[in-house]
């Protein structure tokens, strides 16, 4: 992939392009521009300074171009240079959008425009030394094929294009393209011959494309997959054995290892704020406003956001139990549990395992003993160092031996000196023109967190007996129906290849990352149409979100049989608000613990055992007043916990009590009790009635979302969502924590 680009777009804006054809509502120019805008936006989105583009207006009202002005040649008239070759900027895009409107003339020669474009590219891509630079050079002509063309010297023009090494792309509005399947019925006079002239010119070029806009626009929805340069993760010997110790019995093969898969990430947004206006005079004056930030020149209203850090340590003597410390007074270290372990600067790397670059085989396993789902992610491919014949033959013998034995190799790799060792599994990959080893990372002991799950083919009862017939196990009927359904929904031959032969449906090459391409498409669209709303995801990105209709409709009976055999029932939404006589939870023995509880005693909630006490009162409540009384006691306990807290030591416990109170009252559908409590609580907190400045606690209340219960949670509640959100604000803000 050439890194530098020089592309000139020639856009035909003759008066005839204002018309609309082939049943379209938009003008022909707008139609053609769909392609051009998308391509320009794609270049801009790459944010590459070495990707240059220029734009020429053909059949324009003006005649402003280098050849016309220098040679005064009328043949170069009605061609305007709208954007010189160079990186494309946003303001230039806006200029183009105003200038690329249909003109009032039909004069202007497309061939002349191509000559101008060739000279622009030649000049731009010639290095100072006089030699041509390494560029991708391309001319894209979008025209409706009207107007007159001077075809007298096509051969020499083609020679020149080939000499400069330019790719010529001609995209015609309503040009006939039988291969694509487009033919214009009411073709204007002269257009057919112009099409022929342009096509013959393209054919004379070494590299050229001649097509119709309809196809180009259709192809726009196919996402462009970036092909990054191969990234090497290891270069050196692949070893079997210890060469230092056993030189005569150690295999060493010179290899290179590259990424085979690597997750493509969607572009990330950066954070900005609207630049503080004059409101912030005192800070604004002291800031370096003189320094003009070129990056921001186009958007003066936005200002970048940076993070600052402050550090706090516990200090029982400080107010609130914490004090700020300066970053400069801090040393480096690690946490061992909650113990801080200081590691002095001179010993900084003491905890780091010393490693040297290496790639060595640990052993081999049969391929059927590998469980794919236990690998840890992205794969790589290893090939022999290609100029080393010995390495090529040696690796080939290794690859073929693995292949013939159906085996994989387990290896330890340290990509570079000092990097952490990784264990990988290597498999042979043999293709007609390629031999290599592909690998995936394997988990270490610490990476596996095996929770235990009951088996799926038998049920073990609490008494320890094993049964094979149970409502959680499939019946023979269900097993058969599932088998038929899975067979029917087979995709392995459901697709069609280019020749119409059955092939795999949904091959990986046809799946595009929805996250990556949706945002790219949206950015391009927003750049060109700033006011248009965000589109739903493109069809091509949603293509694999459902089974193919044809397959589904063809196998409706199998699905029906499966549904019948399964007899799955949806669980009705949980019944809330059952206030009294709720079902009680019992221990494994089924003992009725509630009957053991001393009722009278338990009407009182103790601060030590508040949560169980409260829950038990609520579950055994026989009247609203029981609940009111219990909630009142809880409210007092919460206030008490906050009030008695040393620093923030009691906050978590108070929050947990609040959470239980809120959840219980919510499920009892008695939101008013909670709302009254939390309003009163906030008032007392703000007034400093709960042991001084406790606003920090209210931030935690906000963090845990323990504020007012609103009508989103319970529809009959008289608190709106906005009121609930507003409730979290503290009129008197906290003093800013950063200095």
């Amino acid at each position, binding site marked *: 992939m050439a890194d530098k680009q020089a592309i000139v777009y020639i856009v035909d804006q003759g008066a005839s392009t204002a018309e609309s054809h082939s049943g379209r509502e938009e003008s022909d120019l707008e139609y053609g521009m769909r392609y051009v805008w998308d391509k320009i936006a794609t270049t801009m989105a790459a944010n590459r300074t070495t990707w240059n583009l220029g734009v020429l207006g053909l059949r324009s009202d003006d005649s402003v171009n280098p050849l016309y002005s220098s040679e005064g040649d009328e043949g170069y008239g009605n061609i305007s240079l709208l954007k010189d070759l160079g990186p494309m*900027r946003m303001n230039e895009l806006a200029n183009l959008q105003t200038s690329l409107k249909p003109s009032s003339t039909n004069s202007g020669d497309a061939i002349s425009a191509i000559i101008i474009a060739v000279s622009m590219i030649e000049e731009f891509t010639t290095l100072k030394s006089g030699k041509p630079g390494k560029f991708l050079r391309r001319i894209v002509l979008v025209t409706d094929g009207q107007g007159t063309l001077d075809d007298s010297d096509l051969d020499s023009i083609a020679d020149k294009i080939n000499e400069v090494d330019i790719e010529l792309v001609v995209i015609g509005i309503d040009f006939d393209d039988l291969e694509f399947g487009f033919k214009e019925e009411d073709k204007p006079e002269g257009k057919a011959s112009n099409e022929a002239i342009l096509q013959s010119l393209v054919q004379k070029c070494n590299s050229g494309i001649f097509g119709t806009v309809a196809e180009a626009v259709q192809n726009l929805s196919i*996402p462009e997959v970036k092909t990054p340069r191969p990234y090497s993760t290891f270069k050196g010997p692949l070893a079997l054995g210890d060469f230092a*110790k056993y030189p005569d019995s150690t295999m060493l093969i010179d290899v290179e290892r*590259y990424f085979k898969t690597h*997750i*493509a990430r969607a*572009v990330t947004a*950066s954070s900005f704020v609207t630049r503080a206006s004059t409101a*912030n005079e005192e800070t604004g004056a002291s800031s370096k*406003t003189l320094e003009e930030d070129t990056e921001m020149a186009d*958007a003066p209203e*936005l*200002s970048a956001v940076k*993070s*600052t850090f*402050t550090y*706090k340590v*516990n200090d029982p003597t400080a107010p609130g139990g914490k004090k700020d410390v300066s970053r400069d007074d*801090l040393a480096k*270290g*690690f*946490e061992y549990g909650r113990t*801080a372990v200081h590691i002095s600067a001179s010993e900084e790397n*003491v905890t780091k395992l010393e490693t040297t670059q290496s790639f060595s085989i*640990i052993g081999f396993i049969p391929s059927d003993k590998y*469980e794919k789902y236990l690998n840890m*992610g992205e794969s790589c491919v290893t090939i022999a160092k290609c100029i080393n014949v010995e390495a*090529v*033959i040696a690796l*080939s013998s290794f690859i073929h031996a693995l292949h013939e*034995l159906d085996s994989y190799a387990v290896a330890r790799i340290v990509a570079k000196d000092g990097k952490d*060792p990784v264990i990988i599994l290597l498999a042979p990959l043999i293709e*007609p023109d*390629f*031999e290599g080893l*592909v690998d995936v990372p394997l988990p*270490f002991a*610490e990476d596996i967190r095996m*929770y235990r799950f009951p088996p799926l083919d038998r049920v073990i009862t609490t008494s320890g007996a094993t049964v094979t017939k149970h409502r959680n196990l499939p019946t023979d009927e269900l097993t058969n129906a*599932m088998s038929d359904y*899975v067979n029917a929904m087979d995709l*392995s031959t459901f697709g069609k290849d280019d020749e119409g032969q059955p092939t795999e*449906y949904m091959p*990986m090459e046809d799946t595009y990352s929805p996250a990556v391409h949706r*945002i790219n498409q949206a950015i391009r669209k927003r750049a060109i149409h700033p006011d248009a709303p965000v589109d739903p995801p493109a069809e091509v990105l949603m293509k*694999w*979100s459902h089974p193919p209709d044809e397959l589904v409709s063809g196998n409706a009976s199998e*699905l029906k049989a499966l549904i019948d055999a*399964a*007899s*799955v029932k949806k669980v009705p939404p949980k019944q809330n608000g059952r206030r009294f006589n709720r079902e009680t939870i*019992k*221990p*494994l*023995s089924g003992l009725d613990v509630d009957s053991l509880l001393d009722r009278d005693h338990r009407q009182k909630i*103790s601060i030590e*055992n508040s949560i*169980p006490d409260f829950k038990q009162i609520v579950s055994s409540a026989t009247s609203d007043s029981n609940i009111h009384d219990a909630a009142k006691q809880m409210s007092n306990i919460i206030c008490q916990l906050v009030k008695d807290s040393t620093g923030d030591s009691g906050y978590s*416990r108070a929050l*947990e009590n609040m959470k239980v109170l809120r959840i219980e009252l919510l499920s009892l559908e008695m939101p008013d009790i909670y709302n009254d409590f939390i309003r009163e609580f906030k008032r007392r907190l703000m007034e400093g009635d709960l042991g001084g400045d406790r606003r920090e606690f209210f931030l935690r209340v906000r963090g845990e979302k323990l504020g007012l219960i609103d009508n989103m949670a319970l529809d009959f509640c008289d608190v709106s969502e906005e009121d609930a959100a507003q409730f979290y604000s503290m009129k008197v803000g906290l003093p800013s924590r950063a200095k």
Partner: protein
Amino acid sequence: MADPKESWKQEDDEEEEDIDETSYISQKDAVLFAIDVSESMLLSPPSSDSNKGETDSPTIAAIKCAYQIMQQRIISSPKDMMGVLLFGTEESKFQEEEYSNSRGHLAYPHCYLLSDLNVPAAEDVKVLKAIVEDDEEAKSLLVPTKEPFSMSNVLFCANQIFTTKAPNFGSRRLFIITDKDDPHSTDKKARSQAAVRAKDLYDLGVIIELFPISHADHEFDRANFYDDIIYRDPDEESTLLAAPNNFKSSGDGISLLTNLISDINSKQVAKRTLFSNLPFEIGPGFKISVKGYNLLQKQAPARSSFIWLGGETPQIAVGESARMEEDTTRIVDKAEIKKAYKFGGTQILFKPEEQKELKTFGPPVLRIIGFKPQNMLPFWASVKKSTFIYPSEEDYVGSTRVFAALWQKLLNDKKMGVAWYIARTNATPLLVAILPSQERLDEATNIQVLPAGLWLYPLPFADDIRNPPDVPTPIVSPDNLVDEMRKIVQQLQLPKAHYDPVKYPNPSLQWHYRILQAYALDEEIPDVPEDKTIPKYRQINKRAGEYINNWQKLLAEQVQLFQKERKERGGLKHEIEDDDGPPKKKARTSAKAATKGLAEMSADDLRKAVEAGTLGKHSVAEFKDLLLAKGLSTSGRKQELIDRVEQWLDDN
């Protein structure tokens, strides 16, 4: 206790992709070990003839187990809490004064809080270590009381520990290790009190796990007492529970400690779901519900922290981030922040709601597109670790049997499902293969090491596939060399022909914490790391050294042969390979020969090139070099240069 992670969250939101996953992992867990200290628990098992016979009493085994698990948790879940409570001891000890509520101070007789519930500190490790390594220490502390004591008291003691130390932890568990299946056989009142206190713990959200110890002459019977104490969430797969485990302190075979550790280990990691009740659409209009679990989680050493040395003991400084406007250093509020994309030297802005919409591809779902044979999934088509799913009856009754039927079918026919998968609201959609796993039990302990279920295996998109650089067509190794290599591979199979991750602890991670532990506990710093991932060279040499040596010799011969033949054939393709080798190879090799510099070619080679019509493939620069060497003019276009060369060949 403030969670230091909280303040770092903001910093991470640039990496939007991975953030929600970590928030699931950060759901915190607190485990309190309650270990019975009694005459029978302190009795070493009867000695046996076998060398493997254990000498640890159940109590010591349990404390050793707690000690190991504490060290493990410091590595694997550094934010989680752990504590150790001994009960039935003569001595009593509770929390230090600052945590016990002055007004409600209660004594818990015969409860000895060995290590308070907290994120473990070096001190806690030391306390356990002292008991494990020092017999005298153990003897003086582990003295069982002669008085009767009540279990309700033990349970309430645990209740208070959880209430004060881990009030808002999402997961709180009490591990009871005891051999007494009926502590209050004669005292009905004490029994009832214990049942009431157990209910309190249940209401508090504490789950009790029982690790019962049986003796050779007495089988532990849960029905006697513990079935009144232990609750099971009715929504949890109650009837599907794996068989309860009883541990025998018997002195032969696998030691009690090993058994206990592996069982506690499998339970000590709180079973955290990644998502609950995700609709699993097996066909249009046919749904069941599943839960997702992260059974694979890459562990890495924690990042270094800032330490404040100004106090009595070193302290971690807790960082708080604030956002400020770059040019004015004005602190900005989160609500003010806009997100913009760089585009053509400026920014493209979306409103927050648009930003959100762009990430929305529909509600969470796992939807089957169809099925393929498992062999259609290439080995290398891997981008991310897989997620384990297991059925849940909470939304759809009957989910389990349908799931089981699908699992069975995929397993029997080696098929996989292909599905569209959105894990959570606004999560990025993925295409996944659905692969079945067969249950695997540890051969020695019979404990499950791999559950039966389905795995969501993320598939690469076209955008995720990379390719290595173009290379010349490989030279295929001759058969005899492959034969020799095959012997080597056959000699070096891993034990049990399978990669067992348990045998390969991460050496960097282990070393990091080994050193930290040495610093924290003032132990001697080890010199040499233990690295179990280093190949066993001596064994390799012993088992395959001879074959490798043969292979080396043969390789040298073959390379020589190849080079000789290549020379003789004048750069034409080597014929070791099968005759039906791809024709493309020939084209390539000859093209390569053609690219040999013109100036280096003999007159005969040049004539051949003229005849073959390949002369035009050379660059203008090469022609100029050649013409210059022959003392001819180098001016003119390429065709003229070619003509001139041909002219010269005719003349000479």
